[in-house]
């Protein structure tokens, strides 16, 4: 299980990587992809949609179930990772490389955990 230190985490297993104060990439953690199993579909918002910290912004489906993905930041969707629409399995193969959305005009963020804190949370949940 990987817990890279250049991103911050939500308790609900999303990660956020700040490119600068106002811009961030968002994805799901290695733990999340492992728990969800093989992902076969990703539903992403559209560019220019607004997203809100702590609210669902996307959903991912495994062969068995659908799960909401929560947004770590408030802002506007600048870009979506279109590669995921055809290859949702990238989320399984490279969870920290396969960002889902790029958010700009970030004005707020949810409670975020460091890699150490998130790793501890996972250890406690296990």
């Amino acid at each position, binding site marked *: 299980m990987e817990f890279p230190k250049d991103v911050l985490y939500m308790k609900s297993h999303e990660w956020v990587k700040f490119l600068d104060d106002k811009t961030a990439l968002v994805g799901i953690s290695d733990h999340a992809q492992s728990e969800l199993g*093989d992902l*076969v*579909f990703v539903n992403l918002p559209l560019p220019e949609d607004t997203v809100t910290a702590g609210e669902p912004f996307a*959903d991912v*489906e495994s*062969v*068995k179930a659908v799960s909401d993905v929560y947004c770590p930041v408030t802002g506007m969707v600048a870009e979506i990772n279109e590669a995921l629409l055809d290859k949702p399995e990238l989320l399984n193969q490279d969870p920290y490389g396969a960002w889902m959305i790029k958010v700009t005009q970030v004005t707020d963020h949810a409670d975020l955990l460091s890699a150490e804190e998130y790793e501890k949370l996972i250890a406690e949940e296990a």
Partner: protein
Amino acid sequence: MELKTPLYDAHLAAGGKIVPFGGYLLPVQYGAGVIAEHMAVRTKAGLFDVSHMGELMLKGKDAFRNLQHLLTNDFTTMAAGDCRYSPMCYPTGGVVDDLLVYKYADDDFLLVVNASNRHKDAEWIRSHLLGEVDFKDISDQTAQLALQGPLAHEILAPLVSGGALPEKYYSFAPYLEIAGIRCLVSRTGYTGEDGYELYCAPEDVTDLWNQLLEAGEPLGLIPCGLGARDTLRLEAAMPLYGHEMDENITPLETGLGFFVKMDKEDFIGKAAMAAQGKPSRKRVGLKLKDRGIAREACSVYASAEAVEAVGRTTSGTHCPYLGYAVAMALVPVDLAAPGTALWIDVRGRRLQAEVVRLPFYKR
């Protein structure tokens, strides 16, 4: 409190992700994941613990008469060593359960039922028994494995003694030894592939499981969980109780008319189904054209704008082998022709789908 099958510890040791299902704790998948497990069964072989299934024994002078009365299929032409599928109906025509009948002899049958319906079925059968018959729930004394896939025969054949493996689909050998373990072996399954189901004593099943996995490993055999069991049966369009049929859906509506012999003397549900005539709705296969996955209980519409739903999905998933999403749905017969465009509401999004012929996958 869920029960454990005798293989519970073996599942944990093999990395199974355990979930409650039908009153049992069973693995939904192992380390390989649902897609790899599904593909193993389609291309090589997979091994499932299906010990949760219910087994009911029906013996005695009037056993046959009871089957004819309780079940919709006709058992007149059935030979010893045959398996036969049948729905079991309420007087309304709704379905109590669907099950597999194994015939040992004219007065000796085994019924294999869905785990979640086991107690309901036993009670239903017991309260409708006629004449001289001995009926017993032997589920707790019976474990079951399913070895499924194109290489199932190649894996099993070297392990057999005391007789030959059943050759014909839907037949069985009652007393074989597999790797020295006494088993009933039938050429049956719930995946759309060739394969076998093996019944043995609970105390022997861990040994059988380990020996099969060891023998099959060089050929690509892996353990498979409930997740793959469901995607496999769905891809093969096999109906599942509680989805494609239940107490409010008749076997005729869900496309099981072949297993309802209306010209048979009398059976529970016959009068109601005769009175209902040709069903007004039908189970269809839907292939999704838009991106997304429709699951069960989604509303189905005749157009993108329609306000009134015309039906609902009964199951749906992404098919790992076919590589696209499908669903089954109950819709009015005039919307059931292959090629018909229908729309499915998936959590607020209306996805376009097309009626296609069932099964989605055929080996």
